[in-house]
């Protein structure tokens, strides 16, 4: 059973109650269709568990396969540095079919961020080290494709669908209470 090697810290992008008993962590790729498919499922799961679960997203761009995945990850980190990570994260997944630098620049503008600043951050690879560090941490934790989920630090080897994720989280919750 693969175990998360890089603990969740204040540097992570976290959504939900800090003290939630369950942490669902995703290693994802913005250009991966399976991650796009999982995106609304995560939203449903967040709603389902409310304060009992927090959600963490880390970058795992498969750049050889997905030419826009790295720039999308860097753009989300750019927005994150300005306090708008989740807005950008959601906007990218909601427009995944149009993914490319033009879309990223447009989304930045829509969020009230400077698109020229984003363009130069992408050119300078300003957020590449952050993305790389997520990626390598994922590799060390046994990430084996995208999306890979960890529930309280244990890799979820079941399907990344609503039923299986909810069942796995429920199992973890009941274990915690017993």
């Amino acid at each position: 059973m693969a175990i998360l090697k890089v603990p969740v810290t204040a540097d992570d992008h976290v959504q939900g109650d800090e003290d939630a008993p369950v942490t669902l962590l995703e290693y994802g790729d913005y250009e991966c269709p399976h991650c796009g498919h999982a995106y609304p499922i995560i939203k449903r799961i967040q709603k389902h568990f409310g304060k009992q679960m927090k959600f963490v997203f880390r970058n795992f761009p498969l750049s050889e396969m997905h030419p826009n995945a790295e720039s999308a990850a860097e753009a989300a980190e750019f927005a994150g540095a300005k306090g708008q990570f989740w807005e950008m994260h959601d906007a990218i997944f909601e427009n995944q079919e149009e993914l490319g630098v033009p879309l990223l620049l447009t989304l930045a503008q829509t969020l009230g961020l400077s698109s020229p600043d984003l363009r130069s951050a992408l050119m300078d690879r300003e957020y590449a080290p952050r993305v790389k560090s997520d990626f390598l941490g994922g590799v060390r934790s046994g990430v084996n494709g995208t999306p890979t989920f960890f529930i309280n630090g244990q890799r979820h080897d079941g399907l990344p669908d609503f039923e299986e994720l909810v069942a796995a989280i429920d199992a973890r919750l009941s274990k915690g209470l017993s």
Partner: protein
Amino acid sequence: MAQILEPGTMAPEFSLHVTPDQKLSLSELRGRPVILAFYPADWSPVCGDQMSLYNEILAEFQKHGAELLGISVDGVWCHDAFTKDRHLHFPLLADYEPKGDVARKYGAYRDGDGFCERALFVIDRKGRIFWSYCSPVAVNPGADGILQALEEMPK
């Protein structure tokens, strides 16, 4: 699940096609660590299948001077098409004739299914198996075990 060869065993020699007109023998790589990754088949219908994942991590393997070899029972032309489609930057060996012969020698052949296990071997500079792992066939084992083995291997 098959009983794969264990650490300490000399890695069985092989000579297999990597392209239609080129063969590669394990002994040619003596002096550097070798990662031998048996997998069931080309064209797994998922993003980030095992070989594509290793392709992304190649630089990490190369930091240890290690050579990565993928191996399945698919033929050279199939490997060729798969390599091009996934932009793979490492060789895929065709354990095609006699089918699965090398996989059998490593204990990594699935009789009845007719393809390889997801079995990983890290072979040291002298050709001895340093680490091996067999994953359930439906579970992509990732790369954490390989990297750990490369780190622990005496220089």
